[in-house]
């Protein structure tokens, strides 16, 4: 779903605020997808929006605002990549990843069918596994601490995490099959 911006003149404060408010969540999710690191994603999104703010003051973008923002984000990501060897994407795969992401999620600010499917699939997961996922993604305590909390060994935790995620992936893919092949 596109968000066309008609003007090519600089935008006013209120227009910019509305635009940013509408786009920042979608932008963050995309950046989170390519960076796989919430804090890095936050920084990249912030930097992207600062650049976008500056540009929007001078001249509004033409075309799809989401695409325009993702373009800025990709450039910021590339700059970050030079600083961190741990980034998982290079130039080539970044474009492929964006294409994949847009196909699966639509890249909109609204909740995507993917997220709806994920929520439903999570309901099907075993309670213990769901608790494990919740601890992992809300507190991010690290493998050792998480394994101690759950009373299992680290290899057992890794194995359980892997099995649960595989299960979730299959479930979500099944539920979004029409979107995936569409």
């Amino acid at each position: 779903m596109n968000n066309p911006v008609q003007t090519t003149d600089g935008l006013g404060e209120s227009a910019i605020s509305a635009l940013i408010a509408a786009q920042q969540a979608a932008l963050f999710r995309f950046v989170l997808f390519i960076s796989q690191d919430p804090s890095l994603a936050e920084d990249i999104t912030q930097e992207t929006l600062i650049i976008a703010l500056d540009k929007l003051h001078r001249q509004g973008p033409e075309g799809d605002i989401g695409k325009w923002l993702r373009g800025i984000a990709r450039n910021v990501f590339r700059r970050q990549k030079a600083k961190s060897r741990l980034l998982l994407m290079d130039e080539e795969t970044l474009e492929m990843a964006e294409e994949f992401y847009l196909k699966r999620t639509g890249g909109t600010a609204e909740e995507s069918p993917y997220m709806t499917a994920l929520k439903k699939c999570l309901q099907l997961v075993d309670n213990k596994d769901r608790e494990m996922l919740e601890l992992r993604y809300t507190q991010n305590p690290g493998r050792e601490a998480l394994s101690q909390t759950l009373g299992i060994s680290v290899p057992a935790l890794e194995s359980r995490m892997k099995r649960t995620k595989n299960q979730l992936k299959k479930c979500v893919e099944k539920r979004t099959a029409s979107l995936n092949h569409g």
Partner: protein
Amino acid sequence: MDNNTLIHKILNRNADESELRQWHELLKNEEFSKEAFSFMLLESGLSVHYGAEFKFRTSKTPALFMRRRFFLAGAAILLVGLGIVLIAKIFFAQPPAAINRSINMVPPPAPPWQLSVTAETIPPAVPMPFRAAPYNPPASNGLGKQGGNSEGGNAEGETKNPDAGLLEQAIRIFSGQFKFTVRLPKNLPNGFSFLTAKRFPPSQNPDKTETALLVYINGSKQLLIFEDTDTKKTRTKSKNASDEKYWHQSVSGELRITFVGAGFSDAEWRLLIKQTIF
């Protein structure tokens, strides 16, 4: 390691360098990349589901913006500081003499081990009022202990040219009791000032000298050092120490060196007064 395990290791940030290289290589493969992207999407989806969200930090205090601003401010302060240090280094790297000549400032106290070096570069000294008290000639043969007036001892002076702040004056003392007065400048420059009085017994023992070295530090502290080449002993007297046999330092800035006693009365002596101001 199968692809699925590799993907989990990578996404759990649990992979080593070689696995990371393998990951980047495999991502070029369409099938693998789809699988990898699916898990990446799941990871980011789980993060979002469990609360990861972005809140735009207002333009007043966005973290990166502020970080950049602090960085720039820090860098500016550092540059200014470095500039000051550099200028100071360039300025103070000049030899003390050059500074003296260029800005006519009082040089800082020189450490003792630099004395011989700095003596050559000192600015022209203020001519020292130098006055030898008139000498009353000996009544008879000019030798032997005299009962002459101590205020008016006999002296015959020969003056060497003051050379770059070095004031030397050798005075022949034929015999007798001698009192020599040097008026010191009231405003001694900060730093060290040496007033050296040397006695030479030319005929009896040419090697025998005795040096009285008066040291001014910052124009106030004084130290009188005697060195006797015979005994190799160095005696140090503080400002208030009293050795009337050899000297007297008055509070008004006059140095009176009085040679009295048996050893000094029957020979010709030369007295070398040397002032060096650093």
